[in-house]
């Protein structure tokens, strides 16, 4: 299989959707003339025209609301929010409209909308530009939340997002855009709610999603040096969450570490830990460990920022602490 970058996997899929369905339109800040702040839509406006690939004003609330209305009105829109940090300005539209219109109208209307956004820290962008709020979206009934790790995930899950009749929040960790991975030429789609066992192991399960899966794999390497065989689970979607895959792995390894860039306190890692302990209590040899971002905003200085994020050594250390 050919190796392509995460960004390429997204581009390939978006192009296919634009070609396949007239009703597909892409809207967002700087996705056209500028080419997308992470170059995901580079060249698309030239290829598909400003009617299909549309530069919007810097108005997050109406960009998202417009996507919702367009979806209700019969189009198949994809809205790009540049980064997850700016989604806070559109939170009302996402939580109170996108996630509730189908319910409040008793199914008379629904919202087939894909909202893409870049997430994560690590590029020294300081506090306002380095957040990871995947867990907040996952908390909301009515939404689906997709967090790909590999290029293969990105392509297969984005396909599914465009087939889903519900609002889908599609989150891309900025550290992944240039990472390569195998992606089949052919068309394929990955179902939501199916995690991927990235690496098989017997002693401990390392659970991550999006960028944190990478840290988990590095931690698994470290553990291997100490003869600890770690299984690495890539969740792929947070809502729906593949609870079976999590429990199956933990019932085998009897130990788990959940890794998340976001703040630990009140974060999504706590949900995963709680579910495991609720449903596999007697299978656990030790409480589930969480390795997350520090309880601070993200600072600019490189060393401070790195210290604020989960590191492979920490993850490996937490895993060893379970023995």
């Amino acid at each position, binding site marked *: 299989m050919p190796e392509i970058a995460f960004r390429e996997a997204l581009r390939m899929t978006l192009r296919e959707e634009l070609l396949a369905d007239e*009703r597909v*339109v892409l809207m967002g800040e700087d996705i056209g003339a500028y080419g997308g702040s992470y170059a995901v839509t580079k060249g698309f406006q030239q290829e598909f025209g400003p*009617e299909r690939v549309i530069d*919007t*004003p810097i*108005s997050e*609330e*109406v960009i*998202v*609301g*417009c*996507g*919702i*209305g*367009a*979806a*209700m*009105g*019969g*189009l198949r*829109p994809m809205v790009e929010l540049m980064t997850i940090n700016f989604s806070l300005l559109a939170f*009302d*539209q996402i939580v*109170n*409209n996108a996630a509730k*219109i*189908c*319910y*409040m*109208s*008793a*199914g*008379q*209307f*629904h919202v*087939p909308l894909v909202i893409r956004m870049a997430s994560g820290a690590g590029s020294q962008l300081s506090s306002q530009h380095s957040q990871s709020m995947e867990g907040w979206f996952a908390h909301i*009934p*009515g939404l689906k939340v997709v967090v790909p790790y590999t290029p293969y995930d990105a392509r297969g899950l984005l396909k599914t997002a465009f087939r889903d*009749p*519900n609002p889908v929040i599609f989150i891309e960790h900025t550290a992944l855009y240039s990472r390569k991975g195998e992606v089949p030429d052919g068309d394929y789609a990955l179902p939501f709610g199916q995690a991927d066992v990235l690496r098989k192991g017997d002693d401990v399960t390392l659970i991550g999603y999006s960028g944190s899966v990478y840290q988990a794999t590095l931690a698994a390497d470290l553990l291997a040096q100490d003869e600890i065989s770690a299984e690495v689970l890539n969740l792929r979607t947070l809502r729906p969450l593949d609870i079976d895959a999590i429990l199956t792995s933990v019932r085998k390894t009897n130990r788990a570490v959940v890794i998340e860039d976001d703040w630990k306190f009140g974060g999504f890692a706590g949900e995963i830990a709680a579910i495991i302990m609720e449903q596999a209590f007697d299978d656990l040899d030790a409480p589930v460990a969480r390795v997350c971002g520090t309880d601070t905003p993200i600072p600019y200085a490189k060393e401070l920022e790195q210290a604020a994020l989960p590191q492979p050594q920490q993850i490996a250390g937490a895993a060893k602490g379970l023995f």
Partner: protein
Amino acid sequence: MTQLAEKPDVKELEKPQLIEMLRQMLLIRRFEEKTAEMYSRSKIAGFLHLYIGEEAVAVGAINALNDDDQIVTHYRDHGHALARGIEPERIMAELFGKDTGVSRGKGGSMHLFDAKRSFMGGYAIVGGQLPLACGLAFANQRLRNGRIVLCIFGDGAVNEGAFHESLNLASVWKLPIIFLCENNFFGMGTDIRYVSAVIEVYKRAEAYAIPAEQVDGMDALAMYEVTQRLARHVRAGYGPAFLEAITFRFRGHSMADPELYRKKEEVQRWRGLDPITALRKQLDARGAIDDAAFEALQQDVEEVVNEAVRFAEESPKPPAEALYSNVYYEEPAADA
């Protein structure tokens, strides 16, 4: 969607059409008086925002639209729903929280929806429906279906960021929307003069290069005339239009409102401008109605409203499973 013929000019409105508009206004009035009664009898709960006094706005504007034009509005939506022709009994049933309601008891007073009539919903976050209107209009523009959107909101919504972002986007993209501001001078208990830098709301549309007009919202025929004119403009592809309707709510903001913030006299003065009396006079002048006919209309409306209550009373509650349905889209059942 079948594209329907445009409505006639206000001068060409025939007697039956004029009578129908008056009937709708009487219906809204009587329907809401009844909901207030049902609220005090705890048949209806939650927030109940009455439209009494503002009937001419909804009736005049909505009758001037094509039947497949879309309406998106706020929580004060009974009048708009009734003017759009949604069955009174299905609205009453919604307020009663019954399974036969327009939103099957899930939405209540603030969230009336009717897909069949392109009634895209009542929304309860002030200003939250304006971005949706942009999207609906954007879809119409792309699908070239000839439909336009009537987006209704109040004077209070004008100060929300969503208003600004929506008007700018609608103007830049030339979206087919009529932004209809129901200016009743109060946002809940707050007088527009204390919170809006420019109280002639239509003037704020200039900042977005959107043609704007102000109209007497107590005059149903004036509402009809201007709405139809703007609809033509918008439908022709010239972009959005803005309409400020000057009106007044005779009742409190909601049933909970002690109305500490305004004088009885002010309310009385406005009650003197009752839009129903006004339209009746206009029809009288056109020789379109006499006292007997008017009483017949009242009779008719009275029965419709009582029937609506009976229907709502006798309708079943939503089944327990309904709590879990429609969180995500479900393939429609055969009958839908």
